[in-house]
């Protein structure tokens, strides 16, 4: 069976007159139906650009995208803008960090949901209205009927985020993309939205790709986690294994640098330095300048993904490769 998402050697460059930014430098992954993948990374790692590529939302005139991106059987690299409009919303849909800028301020929530449904399906106004109400109830908005007539500014942050989820789910997409949807929310609201997304994913049988910089969020929602650095997946694996025992030095550093309960009084381990400038593609391992274990071989070539255990992989030459070690 074909996976829901199939990405091979995805590269994204942003080309302007002055400079070229190599935002994504060869990303490979598959996502099974009903699976939740978390892409974890710091700002500038290319996680949001990767996510936007799955809907081809990066600015078309500046973006050079190569490789294979297939979502639900559709080729997103070559397909026309016209058929893309049909795919967006019905096959793949997206929620954003800031609902106030993602929602249209001059239309009511009800109108924005109806508009999305009627763009994709031939359905009467009344039926669309009924579906909109069901959707608001699905995302657990209290007094849903009254909220249909509300404008985005009349809702609180948590309700706005729920309304955006309702719009994204209005045409029952197979794949939901989420770009830091809980980062702007308060702690007590963040956990509500995370649990809601987890429930909706299970009830509707969607695949979800969730971008975040917060390890705690990944631990709550992910089946698998991919850690991104300088435009590549440097480690990938099941969430429990990866969080218990990360393989790549960057992933280890990220876990050590995260403040969580029980580290009080201890000094935090830090990663020295800063991420590389992506105006040039790094020739060796992009993390080498900050890595404590660096050796000459790290700088020679970009480390290939090595898999010590089936299901896990890391791009570090220090990680034993299962295929190699059994042959030896």
């Amino acid at each position, binding site marked *: 069976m074909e996976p829901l998402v199939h990405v091979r050697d995805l590269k994204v460059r942003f080309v302007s007159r002055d400079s070229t930014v190599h935002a994504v430098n060869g990303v490979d992954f598959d996502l099974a139906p009903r699976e939740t993948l978390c892409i974890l990374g*710091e*700002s500038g790692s290319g996680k949001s650009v990767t996510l936007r590529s799955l809907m081809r939302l990066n600015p078309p005139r500046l973006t050079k995208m190569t490789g294979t991106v297939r979502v639900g059987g559709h080729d997103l690299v070559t397909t026309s803008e016209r058929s893309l409009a049909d795919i967006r919303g019905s096959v793949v849909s997206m929620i954003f960090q800031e609902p106030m800028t993602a929602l249209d301020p001059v239309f009511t929530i009800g109108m924005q949901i109806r508009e999305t449904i009627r763009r994709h399906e031939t359905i009467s106004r009344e039926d669309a209205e009924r579906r909109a109400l069901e959707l608001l109830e699905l995302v657990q908005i*209290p007094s849903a009927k009254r909220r249909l007539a509300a404008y985005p500014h009349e809702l*609180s*942050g*948590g*309700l706005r985020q729920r309304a955006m989820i309702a719009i994204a789910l209005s045409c029952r997409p197979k794949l939901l993309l989420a770009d830091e949807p809980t980062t702007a929310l*308060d*702690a*007590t*609201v*963040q*956990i*509500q939205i*995370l*649990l809601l997304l987890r429930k909706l994913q299970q009830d509707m049988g969607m695949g979800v790709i969730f971008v975040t*910089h*917060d*390890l*705690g*969020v990944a*631990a*709550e929602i*992910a089946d698998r986690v991919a850690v991104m650095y300088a435009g590549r997946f440097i480690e990938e694996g099941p*969430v*429990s294994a990866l*969080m218990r025992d990360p393989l790549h030095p960057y992933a280890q*550093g*990220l876990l*050590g*640098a*995260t*403040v*969580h*309960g029980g*580290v*009080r009084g201890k*000094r*935090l*381990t*830090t*990663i020295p330095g*800063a991420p590389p400038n992506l105006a040039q593609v790094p020739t060796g391992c992009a993390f080498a300048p900050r890595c404590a274990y660096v050796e000459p071989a790290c700088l020679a070539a970009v480390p290939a993904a090595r898999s010590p255990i089936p299901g896990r992989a890391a791009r570090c030459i220090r990680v034993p490769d299962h295929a190699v070690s059994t042959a030896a």
Partner: protein
Amino acid sequence: MIVLTQTTEILRQLPDVGGPAQPLLTIRGLTKHFPLRSGLLGRSTGVVQAVDDISFDVRKGETLGLVGESGCGKSTTSRLIMALLEPTSGEVIFDGQAVGYGGLTLKEYRRQVQMVFQDSYSSLNPRLTVRDSIAFAPGVHGVARRSAVTRADELLEAVGLDPAQFGPRYPHELSGGQRQRINIARALALQPRLLILDEPVSALDKSVEAQVLNLLLDLKDQFGLTYLFISHDLNVVQYVSDRVLVMYLGRVAEIGPVDTIYNGAAHPYTAALLDSRPSMDPDRRRLEPPLQGDPPNPVNPPSGCRFRTRCLHAEAVCADKAPPLAPAGPEHLAACLMVLPGSGHSQAPKLAA
């Protein structure tokens, strides 16, 4: 009385006045109401009760963590303490001296209390180099230009930046973490005794956040500082604080030693806030959100206890009576009728006969 003379070569930290037992900062009944105006005539249509009658102490040498959700008044509190906003009522007392009106003048006060803001870019002057930004305030306080610049370079060194490389740069040439280090260096330039840190690491990436937190802990020892650390991140507050103050809708919900509160919160809001943290363990995920809904609007806060609309233990009495801060243990106060003896709440302790 503190006298700054023009001959001060390098500013030194001002001496302790009231001794170690006297709190460095005492806040009494601090209140800030913002009037809402609308229409052509700007008639008043209500007030936002951003901060409503809060009192607490910051002790010498401690880190007091201030947590709460957006709209709870934590940033307004920091601006009131810094005298960037005029309070509606209440007073700020610094080491035994009232601030303003016959007490400590603002210039003397701000020499001893400095602030670091969340947005590292907008809090730096884009037209000053890093070195000039740090040397600016000592110049205002009468330090000669040459010694202020020398001092700026020492401070750059102290926050882990090479003075020769970073001194002549402008804020837009720096990363977020570097800019926040500059803000910290600038705050230290006057040798203050109290530093107000308003979400200093919230805008930073995790690996940079850890660097800045380590730096803040080092500087506290090195410069003999007291911190008021404001954040919405409960893990970070637990990491840095000695005591914690929890705010909800403009009022103090709970205050006490960090371990006491994190191991057993007395206020139901604090408990829910702590339970809302992601578990960090995929095998023990949260199953139910501890609270429903968002915090209410501070324009028309609920009567009585402001948390009662979201509280699982709310009873009729909670709507009538605003709970005062009551002792819940050693050095531990909570504003909940379940803690106050004889409050009328069914779970309150009985009054001793």
